[in-house]
Structures are given as C-alpha cells and as structure tokens.
C-alpha cells in the first residue's frame, strides 16, 4: 500500500498553483502579442523572484526551526547603507565594500540569533524590535548633504553595477539565486545541521534530549539569514545603482510568504528551500501578471493574502488529518 506522503503532495500543489497561474495569465494577457508568456517577460519574473528567493533560503531555515525573521527588509537597508558609506567616503576596492556588507549582514543575523536563541526572546518580538533598530541605524548612518538632509547615494561605478546586469538576459542575480538555493537545499537535506534544523522545529524538547544544541542550531539559522540578506542587498543596490534609506521597506513579508506558499509550515519541522523558490516564483508571477491585466494592482494583495490563508488552512487540516490517522493506526496496532 503506497500512499503519497505530505511533502510530495504539498510540492505538487505548489507547483500546480504556479502552473495554473502561468497558464491563466498566458490566456488572459496573451491575446494578440502574448504579453505574459514570452522569454523576455518570464526571465523578468525569475529576476524579480530572485531576491525574495535568495533571502528566502535563510528565512526557510529559520521557519523550519519554527522561528520567524521580520527584520530582513531593514537589514537589507542597513547593509546597503553601510556599503554606500564605504563607496562614498573611501577608495577601498568594491570587493572589500561587498565583504563589509556581508560582514554587517552576518553581524545583524548574529544579533537576531543571540536575542532569540540565547536570551529566549520570542522570535516575533525579538526580530520586530531589531527590524526598527536596523532601520533606525540606516537613517543614522545615511549619507547627508551640507544641510543635513538625507540623500540617496549613487553607486554607479561600472565595476559595481555589472552585478545588476547579466550575460545577456541571464542576470547574475538569477545565477546567484540558483547557486544559493542549491547550496541551501543540499545543506538542508544532506548535512547534520540540516537534519538538526528539522528536529528543532519538530520538537525542541525532543531535539535537546537527543543531544542537539538547540540554541546553537537556531543561532546559525539566523546568521545564515544575515548572509543571504547581505547577498540580496548587494544585488538590489547594484540594480538600483544607489542605496536609499527606503530599501527593503515592507520587504520582510515577501520571503516569509514565499516560504509559506512553498510549503514551509510556520509551525516548523517541514518544508524545504526548493519549495520557497517555487513560492517566490509564484509571488513574482502574480505581481507581474496582474500588471499585464491592467487591473488595479491592489487586487494582487487580495489574491496573495487569500492564497496564503488557503495554503495555511490546507497545511493545518492535512496535518491534523494525518495525525489522527497515525493515532488511529497506532491504536489499531495496539489492539492487535
């Protein structure tokens, strides 16, 4: 008796939703010249999905441990502004500038990790607090003109902006996304750390009893998120060719939404990076497609919200059903 397990089924559902959306937009927006389903547009969708997918890798790790990170958007701004300062005030090479950005990302992630994992502050509150702290720090270190008015710092040297382009239409950000998603998936499925993440998410108590350092595992997940955010910030500033204080405003929900749509349960212990990638693609497709239909863009938020609620309800009811079934089977076996 072979039954499809939940992971496979959930994967098929998210792929199915993505395909349905693509087909739907192809039909609705495809009349005539095919506004949606053409290579130029689809590659643009993947490009738009890249940043949430890259940052989503770290966020997925955190959500698998049953945590959450609300500070990723502000962290992006802080990393961007740090690099802008180095760009504006020093003559250091761009590689050093990017390394400094990554270092700031790692430090931010470490802060989150220490607050959440070492001091046991609830993730939601802890990262909500760092969200405003990181944003405020961005304003504090922002570049100002002679009158003290904040200005956006151009970062348009060709040795940096090439990152925002690509080999033809194959943007570097997409290549980076593929590498990071692959690395994330391998870490998750084939390393002890990955297994530990699932164990911590499934039950912290059981994980502790089986000898897993829960605090360390959670902390590393936050540090990894800091790294992915820094990579996201580098590509964002390279594409914008500038750093502003508003970068990443309201961004934090995108990777979370991508993960949830892709089957990473907020209750922890399930899901993977590929799922998050599918979720990110789904969100980007939705945004892009709604624009093509010339309808009010506000509807995309209604659709996004509705889909998130629907998948969460599915995840919850499916989990409850499976638990009940397992209990019933267990009871039956007990009787025999």
């Amino acid at each position, binding site marked *: 008796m072979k039954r499809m397990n939940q992971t496979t089924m959930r994967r098929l559902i998210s792929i199915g939703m993505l395909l349905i959306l693509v087909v739907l937009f192809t039909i609705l927006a495809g009349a005539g010249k095919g506004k949606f389903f053409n290579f*130029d547009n689809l590659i643009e969708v993947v490009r*738009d999905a890249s940043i949430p997918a890259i940052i989503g890798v770290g966020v997925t790790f955190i959500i698998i441990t049953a945590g959450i990170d609300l500070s990723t958007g502000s962290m992006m701004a802080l990393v961007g502004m740090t690099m802008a300062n180095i760009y504006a005030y020093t003559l250091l090479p761009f590689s050093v500038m990017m390394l400094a950005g990554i270092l700031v990302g790692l430090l931010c992630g470490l802060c989150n990790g220490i607050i959440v994992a070492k001091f046991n502050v609830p993730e939601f509150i802890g990262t909500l607090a760092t969200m405003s702290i990181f944003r405020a720090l961005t304003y504090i270190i922002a570049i100002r003109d002679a009158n003290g008015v904040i200005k956006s710092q*151009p970062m348009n040297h060709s040795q940096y*902006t090439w990152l925002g382009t690509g080999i033809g239409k194959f943007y570097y950000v997409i290549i980076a996304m593929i590498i990071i998603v692959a690395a994330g998936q391998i870490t998750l499925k084939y390393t002890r750390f990955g297994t530990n993440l699932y164990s911590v998410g499934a039950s912290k108590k059981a994980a502790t009893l089986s000898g897993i350092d829960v605090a360390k595992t959670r902390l590393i997940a936050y540090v990894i998120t800091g790294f992915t955010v820094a990579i996201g910030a580098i590509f964002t500033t390279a594409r914008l060719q500038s750093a*502003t204080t508003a970068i990443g405003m309201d961004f934090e929900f995108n990777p979370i939404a991508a993960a949830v749509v892709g089957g990473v349960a907020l209750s922890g212990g399930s899901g993977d990076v590929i799922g998050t990638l599918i979720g990110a693609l789904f969100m980007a497709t939705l945004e892009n497609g709604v624009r093509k239909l010339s309808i009010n863009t506000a509807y995309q938020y209604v659709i996004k919200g509705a889909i998130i609620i629907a998948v969460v309800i599915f995840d919850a009811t499916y989990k409850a059903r499976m638990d009940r079934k397992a209990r019933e089977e267990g009871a039956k076996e007990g009787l025999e």
Partner: protein
Amino acid sequence: MKKRVIALMLTAVMALSLAACGGGATTTREDTAASSGTAAGGSSNKVKVDPYAGDEVKIAYIAHDIGTPNNQGWKEGIERECASWSNIKVDSYGAEESAETQVQIMTDCINQGYNAIILQCSDGTALAPSVKQAEEAGIPVITVNLDCSSDTIHSALVMAVDYDAGRMAADKMAEQMGGSGKIAIIQGVPGLERTDNLEKGFRDTIANYSGIEIVDAQSASFQKDTAMTVMNSFLQSYPDLKGVFAINDAMAEGAALAAQSANKKGQIVIWGADGEKDALAMIESGDMAGTIYTNSWDEGSTAAKIALLMIGSEYDYTCLTATPKVIMEPIVVTKENVGTIAEEDRW
C-alpha cells in the same frame, strides 16, 4: 484657453532644447517619414508613430504612490488628455512607495514596448538607470514633479515650481506671522529634488527675516497621519510655535488636525504646498493658513501632451543637451483668495 497657452509654452521649450540637434533638425517631415522614422539625432531605437493619425499608442503612467490626491490628479489629467483618441491607451501603475518595485515596473513596461512612460520617481538616483534604459530603448520618459538625478537626460520634466514656491510661501507666511516667531518644517521623503528645493527656497527667504527662527525640521514622508505625530511632538517641544511649513498639503492637513486637537486652531500659521481640494477647504475653514496651488489636472495633461508629441516626433533624447523642463504656474492661496479657485479646478 489656459491649456492652449501651456501648449504654446511647451512647444517653445521643446523647440529651444531641440535646437541642439543642429542641421539635422531642419529636415522636413516628408524626408524623415521616408526614412522610416529614424531619429535625426542619430538614435535608431525609436520608432516614430503618429498618435494623432490613428496609430495604436500606449502610454504607461508609473506613480510613487498612486493613492494620493496629487497622483490621482495627474492620472486623471493624463487620461482626459488621451480620452478623445480611441487609439491611445493609458495604463497606470502604482509602485507602493518603493523604488525597487518601481524599477521592476519600469523594466516590465520597457519589455512590453510602451510608446512613452510618464514617471513620478520614487527615488531620483535609484530610478536614473531605468530612465536611461527606457530612453535607449526608444521610449520617451516624461517625469512629473519628482525627477530622476539631473545628469540623466530624458524627454521632459513637468514640474510645479519648487524653489520659488518655497520663497513665495515664506514671504506670505512671514507676513501672516507679523515678522517674528518660531517656525518648524515638516519634510517629505528626503533626497527628492522638488521637496529639497521647496525647503531650500523657504529657508533662504526666511533667513531674510531676522525675527523668525526655524527651530526644527522633521520628516513625515508625505503622509498625513505621520505628520500628525510629528506635529504633536513639535507642539510638545515648542509651546510657543507660531508657524509650520509642510512640504506637501497632506502633511499640512495632518499638522492642522493635530493643532486642532491641541486647541490651537488658528493660532499656528500652517502652510502646505500642492493645492489639493482638501487643503483648499481647510484654508476656507481657517485650519490652514495657505498653500501654493498648482493645477494637477493641467500638469498631468501637459505630461501626456509632451508624451504624445515625443511619440510622434522623429527626435529622441540624443537630441537634447539637458532635460527640458515645463514649469507649471503656481498660485499663492490664502484665505483671501481661495474663493477665486473655481470648483472645477479643484483636484
């Protein structure tokens, strides 16, 4: 009548800036039409179509935050201008106040092959590469009020007066305050040329009045509700505050509401800029002291006119040595003259 004057003014501006094209610019229309619409300036990406002769044309309008009265005013102006031609289609996009989203929408619009883009930049520096990319692809970009960084030459900038509007507001405010007292400024999103210039003009003029002191300046990101909070903190820190200059009307309205709930209605001289409907009503009721009025509908339709002109012309940005600016006429509105702005001109 007014529109015709603007159109004339506009043509003059365009002609002046196109003069940079030199000899090539004198080619007759028939000649260029024969050479399949390639620009006299040298770029070959721009495809000339004639919107007034029935060619299918689509224009994208991309706003920083499409919900605000200003953006709605421009949108309506653009749509009205194009409504008479069934072959002209206008699509409006909102960037949800995010430069990243706006850049994505710009790329999208370039890919979709819009004939022109009317853009209110979320961030001048961040949008500059996209504007350049669009112009290189042969899509004229007309910025409205919020321009991209000045070294990116594009088809046109339609703007309300900024520096001088700040000066006008300052003079009238100083008069209303009797030449003495403390003033606070409520800023918009920092780094935008228009708002920075407004503030600069205001500060430069206030400096002439020795009795008036600017005690504080805080940002409220153009938002009414944020401005209320900022105003409340001003009222706490400076009990003797006599004047507030907000960079846009929405924030002035917020400040006026905060003053009202602190029982200081009419005691504080509150000024805004833009001249939206609600602000004019608040000036009538005495909650606000004044504003600098610009007709947003005219501004939108002017932007659309330039867009159509550029679509139908053989010239593109390569002919320009600087971005042509079309400056909308400002009116200083106080309680005395607010009645002269007719209902049909209130947006």
